[in-house]
């Protein structure tokens, strides 16, 4: 008797579990529905595995000639040679330094200017058309000019990053600042804030997370500007290693160089993202 009842309960339980599972699977395609952290992580890793898998399939089976696309192991050994025999760490540091120097400089000038442009119409009227115009001129096209003006030294690289980043930074920061909700500004005024007080205690904190997002985005672009600058004229840096490898037909080195830039970009983005989440916790979730 007892045994029989248990079986019935178990059957019902199993049935319920099945419907729950079916419902769960259906939920995966529900827009904006959150998924578990484990599933998220698994999918993240899976995408990389898939990429390396396709690469392996194409190269180890010689579908693509290894002269044009070396195997993953070849690229890794190229990387080891780069580090051990060609002092690649130095190139990475040089590139890193150039990006940071130019980018930080563009932030020092661009962020305050963007804030003023987003909050004061007189500043907007004066700078907006000019900055928008400048932004649409590709910095890569300026490189020959910069070389003529300031040579091919460090200053030229830093200038490329600076010019490439600053106009986008100014405009994106200005947009963030001008989108601060009016109720917040008005509430501050009715609580006794001065104009400057509103700027400092409302506009700035309210737009900070958005400014941080803009910084992350533009930093991503800065990584491609530096490589372009280094491809054109440089003795050191990841870009110069890539162009040198092309001359020597060392495809493995080129791919390793490209991957290094990817990792550096991902790393810097991750750093800024975590910083943003830590500093502006109020903006993220509950």
């Amino acid at each position: 008797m007892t045994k029989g009842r248990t079986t019935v309960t178990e059957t019902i339980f199993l049935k319920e579990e099945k419907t729950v599972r079916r419902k769960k699977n259906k939920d995966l395609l529900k827009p904006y529905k959150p998924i578990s952290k484990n599933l998220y992580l698994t999918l993240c890793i899976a995408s990389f595995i898939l990429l390396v898998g396709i690469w392996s399939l194409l190269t180890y089976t010689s579908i693509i000639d290894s002269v044009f696309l070396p195997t993953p192991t070849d690229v890794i050994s190229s990387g080891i040679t780069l580090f051990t025999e060609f002092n690649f760490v130095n190139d990475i540091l040089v590139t890193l330094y150039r990006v940071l120097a130019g980018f930080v400089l563009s932030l020092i000038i661009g962020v305050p200017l963007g804030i003023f442009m987003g909050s004061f119409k007189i500043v907007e009227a004066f700078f907006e058309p000019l900055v928008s115009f400048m932004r649409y001129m590709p910095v890569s096209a300026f490189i020959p000019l910069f070389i003529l003006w300031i040579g091919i030294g460090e200053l030229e690289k830093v200038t490329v990053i600076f010019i490439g980043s600053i106009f986008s930074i100014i405009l994106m920061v200005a947009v963030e600042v001008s989108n601060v909700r009016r109720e917040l500004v008005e509430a501050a005024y009715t609580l006794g804030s001065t104009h400057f007080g509103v700027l400092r205690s409302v506009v700035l904190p309210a737009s900070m997370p958005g400014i941080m997002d803009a910084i992350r985005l533009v930093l991503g672009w800065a990584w491609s500007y530096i490589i372009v600058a280094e491809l054109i004229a440089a003795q050191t840096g990841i870009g110069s290693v890539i162009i040198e490898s092309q001359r020597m037909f060392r495809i493995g080195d080129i791919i390793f160089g490209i991957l290094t830039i990817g990792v550096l970009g991902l790393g810097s983005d991750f750093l800024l993202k975590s910083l943003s989440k830590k500093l502006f916790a109020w903006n993220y979730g509950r």
Partner: protein
Amino acid sequence: MDDLVEVKEVRKIFKGKGKSPDVLAVDTVNLKIKKNEFITILGPSGCGKSTLLRMIGGLEKQSEGIIYLARNEITGPSANRGMVFQAYSLFPWLTVEENIQFGSKIKKMESAKKKAITQQYIELVGLKGFEQHYPKQLSGGMQQRVAIARALANEPEILLLDEPFGALDSQTRLIMQELLLTIWEKTHKTILFITHDVEEAIFLGTRVLTMTSRPGKIKADIPITLEHPRSYKIKTEHHFIDLKEQLTELIRSESLKSIELQAQ
């Protein structure tokens, strides 16, 4: 007794952009508010009642006329007129406590006094235990309580409320009405409250002003003599229902006009 607020021959014209014509939003309003009054302004949507409140708050400049607060002309927003908006206006990067202290920080109030005042108003709005929460962690009703506490903690001469419960569900709304009424019964802070809800206007106010549809004018000025402290139960009493009927008629005819106006 002296009038705390005096609105004198105030008109507001919104300049039309491009080809759209100018709009007369508020037409020649005269209004006197005495200290300790709880005035509710009732009007159909789009009648300019918010504009009137915003002009008293100093957030909007009238096109004609003058507004005085304690005989001083109002030229802009200031800490002596606290405001609560319909949309949530808490600073999301500040905790409940820090939001309420926003005004005292500007005044550079000493720390002990600031703490005491904050605690007093947190208790008044029933949010003890939520001092360290961020606005995102609170429900809509709780956020509006913080907004009311933030405005009150600044000890303004008058509290201006612009449909503060408009975005809340009806149950929360009723609770918030009682809360606000209790606060007024305790503090007798002068309040000007905008609403389009007839019941809310009568239940809260010591005086209900109704406005016409656009251009907004004061149509009727009706003292509400219901006794204090009021309980939600008075809403079913005869006197309350009579008032409700009378005011509903007044507003209904204006709402119909404003719908016709929109249809044209």
